[in-house]
């Protein structure tokens, strides 16, 4: 009777573990929204500070504590107050104690212990990869569909990988299962069968022996029957015998790609222009990661001469002097011939420049691209980071007319990058 009453007190135990995850997501969104400016700034900093390959990660965001404060009325230092503390060791009434450090007026009793006001630290938190990409794309004015395509993980393919002890019926591996069943039957029935053999021998002997008592034969026969029945009761196929073909999901193996980043590092390419170029390269890289398992990036910078450099040097160095674009194209051809000659390399090239080229060089560039490069690359994209059209732009315009895998675009702000990609995606879909 008592038991029933207790249970009535306990209305129920509810397992909430599977429901209502991420209840705070709406609050988090509001929090991020409120600090959008700081986040955007941090994302911008991260883009210029990170390598192209590392772009696809979360980021630490720092928000100054004062921007987060929720002010309420409270007492400040000053006036007279009395506080009770535990743990008296030596004081008696009337003792005078030096005011603890902490400055003008007084510490507010209990908190005066902390040496530097702990509330003053900046608030640092992490945004996830998705959130980071969202802010990255926000600047680029990419349509939503494209964003999701870019952040998507590559396609998966399932592959056989040995055997597993559970799975769906259509994956049952019959031979393995039967073999297992047989092994089990042998193992479990071994002792019984041995005993059975002994008994049968004794029975045969008893039958041969004329002095055998009839009831001994009867006992033996009965025992044998029991054993046989027990053996027959061993299941022919038990659920534990079943083996299933195991499948694991693996990223779809796709072919390899190499991305050439060509950039003009003459004096006129300032930080802002380089930043635009970098964003463009990043976007191309992200695009390629969606399609290719393995991507190599080759950085070629040039002024009057071209050289292959590391990523850091590529974005940070700055040299003055004239500009000969064809030097970079030639170097690219050399590298292609030396390292990426085989047909399983998909070559992409992206060139960023302010369009300022040595007068006689531009026709040569056009020729190089038309005759030698375009036939070997999947796609060649040229972005010019300034508005005026100079001879290189004019020459390139002539290429664009005749070739589908060549795109060019003037990009003045990061938002202009997208049209180039629209081209690119259109073509990718058609292929």
């Amino acid at each position, binding site marked *: 009777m008592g038991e029933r009453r207790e249970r009535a007190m306990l209305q129920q135990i509810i397992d909430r573990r599977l429901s209502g995850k991420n209840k705070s997501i709406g609050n988090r969104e509001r929090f991020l929204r409120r600090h959008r400016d700081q986040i955007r700034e941090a994302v911008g900093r991260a883009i210029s500070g990170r390598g192209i390959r590392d772009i696809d990660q979360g980021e630490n965001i720092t928000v100054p504590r004062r921007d987060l*404060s929720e002010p309420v009325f409270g007492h400040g230092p000053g006036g007279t107050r009395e506080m009770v503390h535990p743990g008296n060791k030596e004081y008696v009434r009337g003792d005078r104690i030096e005011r603890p450090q902490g400055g003008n007026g007084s510490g507010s009793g209990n908190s005066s212990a902390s040496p530097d006001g702990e509330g003053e630290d900046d608030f640092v938190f992490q945004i996830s990869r998705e959130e980071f990409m969202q802010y990255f794309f926000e600047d680029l004015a990419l349509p939503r569909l494209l964003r999701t395509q870019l952040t998507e993980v590559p396609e998966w393919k399932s592959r056989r990988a040995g055997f597993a002890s559970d799975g769906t019926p259509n994956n049952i591996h019959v031979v393995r299962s039967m073999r297992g069943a047989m092994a089990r039957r042998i193992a479990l029935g071994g002792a019984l069968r041995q005993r059975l053999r002994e008994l049968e021998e004794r029975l045969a002997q008893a039958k041969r022996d004329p002095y055998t008592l009839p009831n001994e034969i009867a006992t033996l026969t009965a025992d044998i029957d029991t054993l046989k029945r027990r053996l027959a009761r061993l299941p022919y196929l038990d659920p534990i015998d079943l083996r299933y073909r195991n499948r694991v999901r693996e990223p779809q193996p796709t072919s390899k790609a190499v991305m050439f980043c060509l950039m003009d590092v003459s004096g006129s390419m300032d930080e802002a222009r380089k930043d635009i170029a970098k964003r463009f390269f990043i976007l191309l890289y992200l695009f390629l990661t969606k399609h290719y398992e393995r991507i190599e990036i080759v950085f070629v910078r040039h002024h009057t001469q071209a050289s292959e450099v590391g990523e850091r040097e590529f974005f940070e160095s700055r040299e003055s002097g004239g500009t000969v674009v064809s030097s970079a194209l030639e170097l690219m051809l050399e590298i292609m011939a030396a390292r990426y000659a085989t047909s399983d390399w998909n070559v992409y090239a992206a060139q960023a420049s302010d369009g300022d080229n040595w007068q006689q060089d531009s026709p040569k560039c056009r020729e190089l691209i038309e005759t030698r490069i375009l036939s070997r690359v999947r796609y060649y994209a040229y972005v010019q980071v300034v508005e005026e059209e100079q001879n290189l732009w004019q020459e390139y315009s002539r290429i664009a007319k005749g070739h589908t895998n060549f795109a060019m675009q003037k990009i003045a702000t990061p938002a202009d990058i997208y049209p180039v990609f629209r081209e690119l995606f259109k073509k990718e879909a058609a292929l």
Partner: protein
Amino acid sequence: MSAALAIRDEQPLPCPSDWSFELIEEYHDAIARTARRFKLDTYPIQLEIITAEQMMDAYASVGMPVNYRHWSFGKQFIATEKSYRRGHMGLAYEIVINSDPCIAYLMEENTMTMQTLVIAHAAYGHNSFFKGNYLFRMWTDASSIVDYLVYAKNYIAECEEKHGIDEVEALLDSCHALMNYGVDRYRRAQKPSLAQEKARRKDREAYLQHQVNDLWRTLPRRAGKQTEEAQKRFPAEPQENLLYFVEKNAPLLEPWEREIVRIVRKVAQYFYPQRQTQVMNEGWATFWHYTLLNTMYADGLLTDGFMLEFLQSHTNVVYQPAAGQRNYSGINPYALGFAMFSDLRRICEAPTEEDRRWFPDIAGTDWVATLDNAMRNFKDESFIGQFLSPRLMRHFRMFAIRDDEDESELEVTAIHDDNGYRCLREALSRQYDINHREPNIQVWSVDTRGDRSLTLRHTQHSYRPLHDGAQEVLKHVGRLWGFRVILESVDDEGDVARRWEVSPPPRH
């Protein structure tokens, strides 16, 4: 049946470290049976198993199962998550909601021992406190709070849709700044049901607006009456509930804005008793988990291993570092509350001569009834003022320090000796008086005939000034009020010691 029970009592409950639903039920039954021996009266109990992440969710929305959306909860969540991931803090091992049925969360990661501890602490300790304590009975309505929060969440989401997230957020920010001043301290709250609330809302909106319009009506005045009217104060009496005053009288708020002010005010009111009974509430819950589990151990229901794990955790909870120690950060409410209830029991059961002098009414009485009475009819301030015994002051080695701005040194005003007991007890009791802890700020006057400015008045105690955040808070008041707002800080002699002022930009 009873025979079967007796037999089971002789052998301990199974005690693996992993919990299971069956075990939780079994332990709960044992706890419930033990609690009934001590006449603990509780709301029905609903135990919910949640993950660490859900615990953080609950943490972030001030422990409530639902709440409206606001960035500050997001900030709280991120901060909690960060320190949890770094291992800086274990999550509080319990969150319990003052609702009917009383919801107690059990975290998935806990061992069976911890789950038992939480059930005893939260589902029996806190739960009986919620149901019994006069402040909770007076101010909160356990049966409707969850429904009300669901309503608040939906209403605010609706407002966000209609008026934009930014607008709602700004309003909530301002309301939160005044949340501690959204409480009726002395008047008894009314408790209409949710259905009534909803039905009334529409009427109220219309009526309120009408009333506000009335107050601010600018009729041509007759010359003769002017002086008389000018002298009529508004409000007639100073008002302590700033949010209520804003809700009813702010000239420019839209009806939906008034409703949101009201929601924040209601939530503040709900938490008001908790802010005043921290020591008692935690002390009561800790006392009962300790008493219940020890009784069960004495009955042979719990194993030694169980008790060791439990006691270790219990000891951590009631640890009180001494002043001056590195990890000292004030009095630990768990430690003080637990010690006081335990001491009260001791005074009832084994009073000394001193106890008989100090507590003639309770020394030697039935401890269960005495503790029950203390739980029901006191708050921290009065509980300490009434029941803190000399023995406990000696045990904690308490001492009081006076910090007077005008003197170069601090003075020890009382210690745990015959001369100091009463003084210490008064000082500590004051320390828990919410009116003493928080600045006393009230609505002083409104210039109804002039520029509509609102004047708030801070009445100082012992010359304690406001901190510099006041200016920021005042901006929020300005946003709600819509016109100039003035805050005067008046010292003990009645002189205005400091004055703040904000003039919000005109509303579109």
